[in-house]
């Protein structure tokens, strides 16, 4: 049994070691390269990408969809596990909130990167029309960013006060910052009630908002006449996929944080086991929607649809299609069924497989459809019939992923990744569940 002080010592943020510095500098170099490539894209136009009149959206959009999906992890873990009274969530929620915030922020930036005229961003507000799904996105993404931020911030207030005290002597400057950010948290009953109420409201709000975000993201595609997008299945399919992508990201990050910060006492094998079962359930649901999306249309496919499905299942995109289906969904689902598959190390590998599979899955959703229009692709250079991202696109996309990881790294560096106050309360046998995140 640990006492409060050792808990604080274990969980308080720590300076980077050698590994931390190397990692951060590595990310910063990629981000810098991305910024340079983006400036070049602004100057020379999107001719630096391999997008053309037929493949008019590429990995910027599929990467955006991936970020949006990943951001669902906040709703999936914090809110859903909270409403179902699963108390094992305590050491995981903070990391989930951090991933959520980083992903949704990067989703917002990625969609701007895809805009060919970012200089006219304000037109979205000056001339915005409610009937366009893009306007719905303009409304829902900032809403989600704000809510996700609050879902991270309100629960952390007591911890910031704890850290303010903890670092008072050793690091007065840092301590001051924690003090300021804690908004004068003293733990009075009034403060506790207010915080508890706020968290409760946000935790409930984040569920419909999260679902709306995924839905609108799906509607960007299903409101067009395109083969493969024009599907009533799309929104539910996206939501189920978001559960999988988000949990995959959460498991991968948690494993790394646990190793680096030696949190084996807090994030136990039992947590991985539980997360494994949760991921298993979401994979099953996702599999169900995949069958609805790709297998059932085979029976009534029109000529255009058949060309599209053939290209996915046997043709040009077969490798990526089956990679995302097998590595990103079926294999994890099978492995998770075994107890050994839910051990931390195995879960880390599964988490990475899921994340990788999820990223390529979005690519498979976005691009092949655009290359299967109703009228033949004629009168344009041969290269326009295919799409593979250009160096600019790869560098910029890598930079957005690096930026997300950098935001996560910085939060982990400066914030307690496992809620301190709550852990102490639970140790003292005082787990006032309503007060939890």
């Amino acid at each position: 049994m640990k006492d409060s002080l050792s808990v604080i010592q274990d969980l308080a943020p720590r300076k980077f070691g050698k590994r931390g510095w190397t990692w951060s500098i590595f990310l910063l170099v990629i981000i810098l390269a991305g910024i340079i490539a983006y400036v070049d894209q602004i100057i020379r136009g999107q001719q630096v990408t391999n997008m053309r009149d037929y493949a008019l959206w590429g990995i910027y959009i599929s990467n955006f969809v991936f970020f949006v999906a990943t951001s669902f992890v906040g709703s999936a873990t914090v809110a859903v596990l909270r409403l179902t009274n699963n108390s094992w969530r305590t050491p995981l929620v903070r990391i989930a909130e951090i991933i959520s915030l980083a992903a949704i922020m990067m989703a917002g930036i990625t969609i701007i990167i895809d805009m060919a005229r970012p200089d006219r961003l304000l037109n979205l507000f000056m001339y915005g029309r409610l009937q366009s799904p893009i306007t719905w996105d303009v409304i829902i993404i900032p809403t989600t960013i704000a809510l996700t931020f609050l879902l991270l911030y309100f629960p952390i207030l007591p911890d910031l006060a704890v850290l303010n005290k903890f670092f008072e002597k050793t690091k007065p400057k840092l301590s001051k910052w924690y003090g300021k950010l804690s908004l004068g948290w003293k733990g009075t009953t009034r403060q506790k009630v207010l915080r508890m109420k706020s968290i409760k409201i946000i935790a409930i709000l984040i569920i419909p908002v999260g679902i709306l975000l995924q839905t609108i993201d799906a509607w960007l595609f299903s409101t067009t006449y395109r083969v493969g997008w024009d599907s009533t299945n799309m929104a539910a399919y996206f939501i189920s996929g978001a559960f999988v992508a988000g949990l995959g990201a959460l498991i991968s990050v948690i494993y790394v944080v646990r190793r680096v910060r030696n949190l084996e006492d807090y994030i136990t094998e039992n947590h991985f086991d539980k997360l494994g079962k949760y991921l298993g359930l979401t994979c099953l649901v996702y599999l169900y929607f995949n069958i609805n999306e790709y297998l059932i249309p085979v029976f009534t496919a029109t000529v255009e649809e058949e060309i599209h499905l053939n290209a996915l299942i046997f043709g040009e995109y077969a490798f990526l299609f089956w990679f995302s289906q097998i590595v990103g969904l079926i294999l994890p689902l099978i492995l998770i069924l075994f107890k050994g598959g839910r051990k931390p190390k195995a879960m880390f590998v599964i988490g990475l497989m899921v994340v990788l599979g999820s990223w390529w899955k979005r690519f498979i959703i976005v691009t092949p459809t655009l290359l299967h229009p109703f009228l033949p692709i004629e009168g344009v250079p041969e290269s326009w019939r295919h799409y593979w991202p250009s160096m600019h696109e790869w560098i910029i996309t890598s930079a957005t992923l690096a930026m997300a990881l950098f935001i996560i790294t910085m939060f982990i560096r400066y914030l307690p990744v496992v809620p301190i106050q709550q852990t102490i309360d639970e140790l003292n046998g005082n787990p006032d569940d309503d007060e939890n995140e």
Partner: protein
Amino acid sequence: MGESSDNNRRKFLDNGLKLSLATIIGSIGLTKLSASLKSGEKPASGKPVELMTTDGRLIEVDSAEVMDMDAHCGHDPNYNVREGIPNRKFVMVIDLAKCKNALKCVQSCNKFHMVTGDNAWLKIHKMKDSQDGAPYWMPRTCMHCDKPACVTVCPVDATFKRRDGLVLIDNERCIGCRFCMAACPYSIRVFNWSEPEQGDTSEITSVLDNGYPSPDYAGMPSKMGTPDKCDFCPHAIKENVLPHCVTACPNGVFYFGDKYEDTVTNGEETLRFKQLLEDKAGYRLLEELGTEPSVYYLPPVDRLVDFEDGMENYNEFMSVEKPE
């Protein structure tokens, strides 16, 4: 006590509602009254004028009843580029039986709209509908749909539908999200991925009505990061001139006209629009999608030309000729 005050409140609300209802009805009545009074202000002049109605009858009316109407022509100061030409509905009919892929329409469109990219606005597809069916040439313009998918999804109203049926693009407002291109089931939109190489812009602006770019002159100049597309040549039709593709076609494939006038012409013959569709079984592309195109096709029956003649001009990978 409590009950009676409750009753009082109910009564008050009841009366209030009745009063406001009466006010609304009264004010509507007053407006109507004043409107009818105003219209009666004009005294009859007593001078009759003879006029001909649209169906050819001669009628006599009081000269005071006659008012000037806004002219349709482009010099009308009230002309609004987003509203279009009043009381018009432009349509096109493309006769597939006559097309032999001469490409004159494409070349003329490219030239007049200064298309410099790799994808022409107007293209001729080599079509074959079924295994045993015969191939044919199909020119494809923008369909100027009455339910345009591109306009629905545009977040900033940069692409818009006019009352005269045209779908145009304001490339000064477009944010370059390309949602319109994704939404168009006919894949007709082209995008300026790089700075369009249209040369000296002063040359372009000298062509424009008042020197400013306008959606009436699509592609003049084109803007990097925004789409372009077939515009039905509003700069020409507001001067009562046919679109470039119509006049350039040596085979009279394109008929252009006004649905309200029930007339279309290819420059040589002028036909009744409805009758033409009836006689030649006109249809629209992807009718089942419900986009309501303004472009009609006449099927390639009783062909006047040989399909093979078009093969020598056929280039699968190029639609815009580049100066060497």
